[in-house]
C-alpha cells in the first residue's frame, strides 16, 4: 500500500508539472486549455488518491475531493473556452479548422 501511494503521488506531481509546463509553453488560449485542464485533472486525481492510500484514515475524504474535481474541472474548462471563443479571441496561425466560426457570425453559440 505504501509503494502504491508513493507511485501515485509521484505520477500526480509529474502530471501537475507537465500541465503547468503546457500552460507556459503553448501558443494559444485553446491549446493552453487543452494542455492545462486535462493534465491538471489527472495529476490532482492521482496525487489525492495516493495520499488516501498512504494514510487510510483520509481515504473517504480524498475520494470525495477527487469526485468533485473530476466533475467540475471539465465544466470550468468548457466555460472558459466558450467565453473566449464568443468574445473573439483569435486562433493561432497554424490551426487548421474552426468549426464554430459560422455560429459566432449568426450569434447562436
Amino acid at each position, binding site marked *: 500500500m505504501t509503494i502504491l501511494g508513493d507511485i501515485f*503521488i509521484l505520477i500526480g506531481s509529474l502530471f501537475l508539472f507537465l500541465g503547468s509546463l503546457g*500552460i507556459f509553453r503553448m501558443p494559444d488560449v485553446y491549446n493552453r486549455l487543452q494542455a492545462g485542464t486535462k493534465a491538471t485533472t489527472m495529476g490532482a486525481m492521482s496525487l489525492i488518491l495516493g495520499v488516501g492510500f498512504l494514510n487510510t484514515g483520509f481515504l473517504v*475524504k480524498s475520494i470525495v475531493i477527487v469526485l468533485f474535481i473530476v466533475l467540475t474541472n471539465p465544466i470550468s474548462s468548457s*466555460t472558459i473556452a466558450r467565453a473566449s471563443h464568443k468574445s473573439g479571441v483569435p486562433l493561432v496561425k497554424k490551426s487548421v479548422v474552426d468549426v464554430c466560426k459560422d455560429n459566432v457570425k449568426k450569434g447562436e453559440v
Partner: protein
Amino acid sequence: MILTLSFVLIGLAVLFSLIRLFKGPTVFDRILAADTLAVITTALLVLMSLLFSRVIYMDVALVYVVLGFVGVVVVARYLEGGL
C-alpha cells in the same frame, strides 16, 4: 524522498502558472492560470494534510476547490456577457 521530489515538482508548476498569470496576453489566459493554480493549491493542501497528519486540511481543500470552481465560472460568464 518522494515527498521532497513531489514538492519540488509542484513548486515548479506553481512558478510556471504564475508566470502565465502575470504575462498572459488576454484575460482568459489569466483565468485559466488562476483555475490551474486553484487545483494545484488543492493538491498541495492534501499533501500538507499527509505531512502534518491533520485531517482539517482535507476540509480546507474541499472548500477551496468549490470556491475556485464557482469563481472561475462566474468570471467566465461575466466576460462572455451572459451573467
